[in-house]
């Protein structure tokens, strides 16, 4: 097995994640039920004409990928792999509304052109003039994890530099539908934070996190990405057995983990999946969460990985992420566990390097 190192990371999120110091200083627990990104200075990364044309998700993806590549000093990667649960929902919503409102007349192609799910990956390739492998995964809350699995396959197949990321954007129409069916929390349940909201649904966010993965460790390295596993529709009681098998494949037990990064999003109906592990196999392990900062979206777990990579590198766990308090001396093995509404379970294993 070839080693896979995270040598560069970039994030555009609901927090100021332009750099880690700024994030530690300025972080804020989200208090709204729908939260947009903290806008970076797009002009630093994208030509003004393109800024006007690109929807938020595309812009955020381009910026996050540029930051990650720059940090790892990569000009052109050998693959660009993107995960997005909802794709370009702003432009597809715009085109759809025009079709319906104008009875299929007076349409222009602009929104349609930008509406395909692979627009982010395509635009990154176009910007970098990168003619390499380029794929987009769109499987709900495991979109980003499938992208990671593909990247690991590539590294094991002798590729050296992979750009991989997760990106989703808030589209007004799709959010209004999700509100209609109770997927978004009511604003008034949020005042004490998502975990104390005692309500169904979650808090909607958006963002883009990209990672420069390489088969060689650079000075900028954050962590080693060891393995990723996805489980789409397993029974509740199978989560733990799948997890233990996943760890066993790497000769690890649950107690060998130094830190677990959990996807708790405050949905009282589904956080039980995390709670069950928190109170059993993880009860003596330091646990943290992050969706009170990032919001929930299909690729929010990429924010979790961004967080985990920073913690791995600094070997410090910020207090505002902690779900419990355990003494941690060295952080060597980190595990991310995420699921959405009882489906799309994923495990991601990191090792400090």
């Amino acid at each position: 097995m070839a080693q896979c190192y995270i040598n560069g990371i970039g994030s555009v999120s609901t927090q100021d994640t332009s750099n880690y110091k700024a994030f530690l200083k300025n972080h804020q627990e989200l208090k709204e039920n729908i939260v947009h990104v903290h806008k970076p200075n797009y002009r630093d990364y994208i030509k003004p004409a393109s800024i006007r044309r690109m929807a938020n998700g595309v812009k955020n993806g381009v910026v996050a990928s540029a930051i990650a590549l720059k940090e790892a000093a990569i000009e052109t990667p050998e693959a660009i792999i993107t995960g997005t649960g909802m794709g370009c929902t702003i432009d597809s919503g715009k085109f759809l509304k025009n079709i319906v409102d104008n009875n299929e007349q007076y349409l222009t192609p602009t929104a349609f052109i930008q509406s395909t799910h692979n627009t982010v990956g395509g635009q990154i390739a176009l910007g970098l003039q990168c003619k390499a492998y380029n794929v987009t995964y769109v499987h709900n809350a495991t979109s980003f994890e499938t992208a990671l699995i593909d990247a690991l396959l590539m590294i094991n197949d002798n590729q050296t530099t992979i750009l991989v990321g997760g990106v989703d954007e808030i589209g007004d129409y799709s959010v209004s539908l999700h509100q209609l069916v109770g997927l978004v929390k009511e604003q008034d349940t949020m005042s004490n934070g998502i975990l104390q909201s005692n309500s169904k649904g979650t808090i909607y966010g958006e963002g883009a996190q990209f990672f420069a993965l390489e088969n060689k460790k650079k000075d900028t390295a954050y962590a080693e990405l060891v393995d990723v596993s996805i489980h789409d529709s397993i029974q509740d009681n199978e989560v733990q057995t799948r997890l233990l098998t996943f760890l066993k494949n790497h000769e690890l037990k649950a107690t060998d983990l130094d830190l677990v990064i959990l996807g708790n999003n405050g949905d009282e109906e589904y956080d039980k999946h995390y709670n069950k592990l928190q109170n059993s196999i993880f009860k003596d392990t330091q646990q943290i969460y992050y969706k009170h900062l990032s919001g929930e979206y299909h690729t929010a777990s990429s924010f979790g990985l961004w967080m985990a990579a920073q913690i791995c590198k600094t070997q410090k766990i910020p207090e505002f992420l902690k779900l419990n308090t355990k003494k941690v001396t060295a952080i060597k093995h980190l595990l991310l566990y995420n699921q959405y509404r009882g489906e799309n379970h994923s495990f991601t294993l990191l090792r400090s390097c």
Partner: protein
Amino acid sequence: MSKGVAVTGMGIISSIGNNIEENYQSLISKKQGISKIKKIQTIHKDVIKVGEINYTNKELITLLELPKTNNYSRTALLGEFAAKEAVKNANITNINKYKTGLISATSVGGMDKTEKYYYSQFEETKNRKYIASHDAGDASKKIAKSLGITDFVSTISTACSSSANAIMLGARMIKAGKIDRVIVGGSDCLSKFTINGFKTLMILSETDCKPFDENRTGLNLGEAAAFLVLESDEVVKKENKKVLAYVSGYANANDAYHQTASSENGEGATLAMQKALRVAKIKPTEIDYVNAHGTATPNNDHSESRAILNVFGAKVPDFSSTKAYTGHTLAAAAAIEAVYSILAIQHKVLFPNLNFETPIADTALVPKTEVTKKEIQHVLSNSFGFGGNCSTLIFSKT
């Protein structure tokens, strides 16, 4: 030559047939499936022609034995129908005897329902069930559940090359020993969204499309679903499986030229074909048949012709586009053409490029226009999409 990954089953539904046999019969009897649109109310119904599948949603629901309360998009219905045929065709009775995954592809997902109930779902509760079936991943989830696949399930969307990338990922996962068996393919239904999208790009033909013809006027959209069953050598051996063909080569490259248009010189397509040949460890001269992307848009066919010339030089193999039979079925196109490529190998026959009359002036390539008997060892199949995506698959005889 690399042996590749075994294909042990196939399933398909398209405008030229509801299963493998019907598709094959249509292909060899030059029976195309392009007609006026019937199932979607669109103001363009009199000016466009499409490859529409005969079954109504209601009929598919009955055939799949789904409850009345189901929230299936047409993409999911077609996908499940074809995937079930593939699993049956591979003689799989116990899906979880081996570590099995599903990788599907789509571009429209559940857009057919979203556009239909765009406003009404706010007023009436009964159609809100389709909100959950809008996402691209929904059809894959449903197909996986119906087949009993619980763990590795994913969805790819790279526009019109989507299912080529699904087949590629599946083959790579088997090669890497990550999985024993994987059902790979794609599904896309017709929708007002795509009809109007391609209409605004002015690349919809008002007549039967004419791939690779100098006077081609654009594409016919179509709907379809197709899946292949890929199995590891170990499973093939243990189960004494009949291998239909091997996925021996695959590659994906990006044109990095324009969000929707292909480059003049077909650079991305050239790279994809060359890389796939390298993976298959064969020379261009060993390709016996090219199933081209050939959408019949002025841009694609010209760019692809250039790419074919770049790769094959003076020795261009027999080639054809089957888009005039089925229409361009977007994310499903590579999967149905994978089925056609394997049928070509099995039956030793090339399928014609319908409606062709005049070669494109500056490339002068002439596709096969008649059903032609021929021994076929290797087929190369192209699929290209928005976002510069260019994918090539190579299928080889067992």
